[in-house]
């Protein structure tokens, strides 16, 4: 099995390079000259001297042909040098490292919220197909996937923060709070609204998927065999059906992790949450090349990792894959 994973990992390497090329090409199609950008952002620090400018152009490889630029960039990335952010004036790595935990807190909480709600609702609506609960869930699921995330966030803020005052409007923490429990509860209060908004929208798509997976399994012959053996309903559903349905469900839940990061971008913007999503957004619109491209690559890596994780889980649960095919 270790061989299997090594193989999968190696398969991801060319994909990683392919993604890096695509991202690189897109980023380099953005209009604007970097040196001009730097001068606009920092008129005093930048020279006007054409000689010096030429040196800088060479130093930054600005006039090299695209493939050369790509490889220079790739080389520095692989050695851990992500460059300098022109907007924040600090190394990109530091910026990402400082913002990443905030996004992780948000995404993991939202992911957990998603699971906690989606699993039971999905299972029950599959088991009680066509019941009122099922119809209500279906409508709720439709609503969830049709809601614009940012609008849902805005409405939530209007209702819960502005009108009811239960939660703060934005940010991750309030300044000047002391004492562990105070800080903790303050952080939680800031986390609730963004995490729920991010999580509930995901619940909608998961619920439908869970329902469909379970329904498919319930249609299988071996479930009918279990009923024919006299196994009581609850046991059939939990021991026979659910275990089989979990295979595709786990895969999707793991594969959706990148979407949480993507969704976090908008949520972080609405809630002014100091995370990677907002960092990425700011970088892209200010043409902060190094920061932007590093953020995008980071997202790509997260995607590849979650693919690997999904694979891993799949293999763990399904004995057919785990053992390979033996016997006639």
């Amino acid at each position, binding site marked *: 099995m270790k061989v299997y994973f090594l193989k999968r990992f190696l398969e991801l390497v060319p994909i990683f390079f392919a993604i890096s090329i695509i991202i690189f090409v897109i980023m380099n199609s953005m209009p604007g000259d970097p040196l001009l950008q730097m001068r606009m952002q920092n008129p005093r620090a930048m020279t006007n001297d054409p000689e010096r400018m030429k040196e800088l152009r060479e130093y930054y490889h600005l006039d090299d042909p695209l493939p050369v630029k790509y490889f220079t960039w790739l080389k520095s990335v692989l050695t851990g040098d992500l460059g300098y952010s022109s907007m924040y004036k600090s190394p990109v790595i530091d910026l990402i490292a400082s913002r990443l935990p905030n996004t992780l807190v948000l995404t993991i909480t939202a992911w957990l919220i998603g699971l906690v709600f989606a699993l039971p609702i999905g299972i029950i609506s599959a088991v009680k197909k066509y019941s009122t609960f099922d119809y209500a869930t279906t409508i709720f699921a439709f609503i969830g996937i049709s809601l614009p995330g940012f609008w849902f966030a805005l409405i939530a803020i209007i209702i819960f923060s502005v009108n009811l005052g239960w939660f703060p409007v934005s940010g991750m923490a309030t300044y000047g709070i002391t004492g562990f429990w105070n800080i903790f509860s303050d952080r939680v209060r800031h986390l609730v609204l963004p995490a729920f908004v991010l999580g509930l929208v995901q619940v909608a798509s998961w619920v439908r998927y869970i329902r469909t997976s379970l329904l498919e399994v319930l249609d299988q012959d071996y479930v009918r*065999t279990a009923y024919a053996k006299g196994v009581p309903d609850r046991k059939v559903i939990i021991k026979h059906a659910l275990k089989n349905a979990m295979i595709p469900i786990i895969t999707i839940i793991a594969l959706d992790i990148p979407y949480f990061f993507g969704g976090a971008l908008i949520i972080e913007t609405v809630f002014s949450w100091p995370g990677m999503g907002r960092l990425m957004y700011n970088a892209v619109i200010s043409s902060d090349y190094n920061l932007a491209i590093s953020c995008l690559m980071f997202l790509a890596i997260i995607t590849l990792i979650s693919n690997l994780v999904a694979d891993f889980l799949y293999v763990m649960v399904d004995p057919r894959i785990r053992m390979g095919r033996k*016997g006639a």
Partner: protein
Amino acid sequence: MERILEVDNLKISFRTQLGKITPVDGVSFGLSKGETLGIVGESGCGKTITAFSIIKLLPKNAFLGDKTKISFRGRDISTLSKEELQKIRGKSISMVFQEPMTSLNPLYTIGWQISEVYRLHEGLDEDDAMKRSIEMLRLVGIPEPQKRVKEFPHQLSGGMRQRVMIAMALACSPELLIADEPTTALDVTIQAQVLELMNELKSKFDTATIIITHDLGVIAEMCDRVVVMYAGQIVESGGVFDIFDKPVHPYTKGLISSIPKIDVAKKDQKKLNVINGYVPHPSNFPEGCRFRPRCPVAFEKCLQQPPVVQIERQHSVRCWLFEGGDVL
């Protein structure tokens, strides 16, 4: 001779988006202890649903007719509650299904799946149940049962899986075994083995057996009595010799004569008989006798539902041609 099963006026309907469909209407048959009954008919005649309805293994949108009665050992089981029915399934009445490839749960060992019946119906603990399962595997002719017991279904061949299904079904020595096309999905040589096994076990356990099939060869091999179904009704029923030597219903005659015979001398060989037309869909049953459109000897009276008439002691037929006999 105790009457194990008595099915009276079985009518099964389904409620669908397209309206109400009644694929089975007016089916009556019975079975004594130790007897083997064959239900034969083409695909789509309703024989499988008939078999499933005995232990109510039909989907939620199915319902039985008002006058339908299903008596198992004198008890009407068609009105039992969920829990009571679960006590009967797998213990007093068992089923073997058509597709051994998909009828076993891929995520559990075959040992676990067989011992499930023991744990459920005889209250045995895991170890005892496993011991009994190993015994059953030995009984159905699986070599090295102690090793096999820990294997997963995908590690076994089709024939072996069907043996496992039989082991599971006979584990608690049921009084009635219902086998739905038990050998249809198997290779011919394996078919013979499995049928032989079934005969052996039948006499050993003295189980009353219902075999559903479209294969007249299987009927000839295994059955004492036969019931011929067409378009949701029984068109002829009788002992196995009656049906094969003296078929009376035009459909039965057509079936019997359409079997190619290899042991007939060349001079006696006739053209293969063919019944023209198609089996009607339940939403489109013809008026009156359902076989009328394809019947070579139909006449005007056939536009009305023919009665079931007894022509010999154990031989009855649903056809206007035999109006003289005692109407059943």
